[in-house]
């Protein structure tokens, strides 16, 4: 019964270790979180300001980073033909996001890959080829959101979005939110995405 003090197997040692390890990891997490939050505030390189909905958004392969990134063009391409101030844009996108939350979209769709898997991912919905031509995209999106059961393209799966009583004004807000979301730099997710303006690959 000599051995009572093997320091590395004593209760006290592990109690202290548990506390220090937890504290250290937590401090590192806090530090990284501060840095990350800085880099993902609206208006940063990774998450553009809401007025990006006034611009043309496209998608391009970045050879240095080895994945596709959103490209925001200089020239104007205002949503629904109406150029908005930063404030107006924020208001519209905010309304859109609140509708997306209130209609519980995330329990069928994924946003940034999180949510349910019953319906397609919405991260780059604005850029999807399903809208055919950029000219008709806005109108097609409004039609779809307002009367999904009539405009559904189920590609043979039989799955249709239910009618959620979305008004025209609400549809526009949702589309503003989707357009803004498509401009976020998601490190190349979803992979290999073939955007509406990119042509066949």
């Amino acid at each position, binding site marked *: 019964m000599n051995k009572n003090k093997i320091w590395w*197997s004593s*209760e006290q040692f*592990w*109690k202290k*270790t*548990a506390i220090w*390890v*937890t504290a250290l*990891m937590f401090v590192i*997490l806090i530090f*990284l*979180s501060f*840095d*990350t*939050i800085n880099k*993902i505030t609206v208006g940063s390189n*990774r998450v553009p300001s809401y007025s990006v909905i006034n611009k043309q958004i496209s998608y391009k392969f970045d050879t240095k980073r080895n994945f596709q990134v959103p490209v925001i063009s200089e020239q104007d391409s205002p949503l629904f033909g109406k150029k908005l101030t930063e404030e107006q844009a924020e208001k519209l*996108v*905010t309304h859109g*996001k*609140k*509708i*997306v*939350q*209130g*209609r*519980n979209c*995330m*329990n*069928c769709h*994924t*946003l*940034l*890959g*999180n*949510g*349910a*898997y*019953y319906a*397609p991912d919405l991260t780059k919905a604005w850029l*999807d080829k*399903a809208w055919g031509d950029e000219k008709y995209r806005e109108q097609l999106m409004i039609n779809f959101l307002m009367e999904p059961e009539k405009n559904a*393209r189920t*590609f043979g*799966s*039989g*799955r*249709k979005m*239910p*009618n959620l009583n979305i008004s025209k004004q609400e549809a526009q807000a949702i589309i503003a939110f989707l357009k803004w*979301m498509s401009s*976020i730099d*998601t*490190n*190349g*997710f979803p*992979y*290999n*995405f*073939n955007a509406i303006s990119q042509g066949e690959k």
Partner: protein
Amino acid sequence: MTINQFNTQNLNVGQKLAIKYFSVAVVLFAAQILFGLIAGLQYLQPDLFYGVLDFNVNRTVHINAMIIWMLYGFIGASYWLLEDETGISIVGIKWGHFSFWLLTVAVIIVVLVYLFIQWGPGTDATIWFINEGREYIEAPRLADIGIVICMLIFFYNVAATVSKGKVTGITGVLTLDLVALAGLYLAGMFYTTNISLDQFWWWWVIHLWVEATWEVLVGCIMAWGLITTLGASRKIVTTWLYIEVALMFGAGILGLGHHYFWIGTPEYWFTVGGLFSALEPIPLVAMVVHAVYDSGKHGFKSNNHPAMAWLIAHAFGNFFGAGVWGFMHTLPQINLYTHGTQWTASHGHLAFFGAYATIIIAMFYFAVQKWRGGVTIRGDLVDSGWKWKWSLALLNIGVMGMTIALLISGYEQSQIERAIGGSTWLGYFQAQIHPWFVEGLVWRQIMGYITALGFILLVWDLLTIGKKEPLELESKVA
């Protein structure tokens, strides 16, 4: 003391409250399975309840019922062991009962709102009273506040009892873990339009609950179980609880990084998340050694065989669900294809069941045993224990089957939709109608029915087991 009958005289004050929590947990477990079955069926028959009870409603109830029944299980388990651990009666138990009823009424209202109101306009009122629309934490803000109040009362019961009674390693860790548990919930309680920031904080709640604080809570329950049912030395068990906390938090806290690959967050999370994800299975592997050591040195003796069997199911389920299934798609080089596909569903089913459902079911068995006055529940039951054995088998086969079926669907999805289809909507639907995917979901549904059957047997068994069994002679049951 009444033997063989359910009689609350057999229980201490905390345990009386615990069985209330456990009872509601079983009801919510039933709701989870029921709505899971409906949602699964909608994949196969999209017209089922279309426009009445849509997929998003069923799925919301499915995942919320799961989180809440597990929370009920953990709260119940904590009340169950608190008096044994501290040696005194629970301080402020009246508040504990009040909090139970508050939480339960809140849960009922929230579920009724989910089912019958379903959605609201894009206003703050919707977020406050109907649905927050964020996966797992859909509960409206008002209910969030109710949940926080209940958690604070729960915390008060635990902390006040611990500080007044005997402070043990287990209750010390438990108290601190509850602070973290309640604190983290606040990270999910504010609105922001910035979807990247929204998801950033959302993962603080989801990951740091499920992969850190819940794990430690389970560690506390396990430690208590080892001491009271197997007579393990308190000093050794406590030392190991600290070792486990060091390993779990050491890898788990920064393991959060594996959720920050694709939500707009910077690229350094690739390496941070990748490294700590690779380290996360180490505690699981290390535990294998300890289990072997203990079984070899002490052997397992138990007067509650179903509970022991579920604890073993917990060890395997946790290892395969969290360890193997988690690591298969965790590194960003492959997660790029699997993130947001049925892969995640496959991993989620086995990990939640293996890590948490199993251990709470074991607690249920400990509870009914004591509730009936400490009967012996060994292999030589009068009915040879066919009900618990079959429910154990059916539940495990059912969940494992769903996991493998979803894995096949997810594997196909990562190829057809992501790698080949370019992740567009067309690619998505091409993957959804592919025979592999459809077959996988058919089998998932069949396995879901098997799970439900196992659950029905489980409830039947919990209500009847030990009815005709003798009282253990040197009854040392907790």
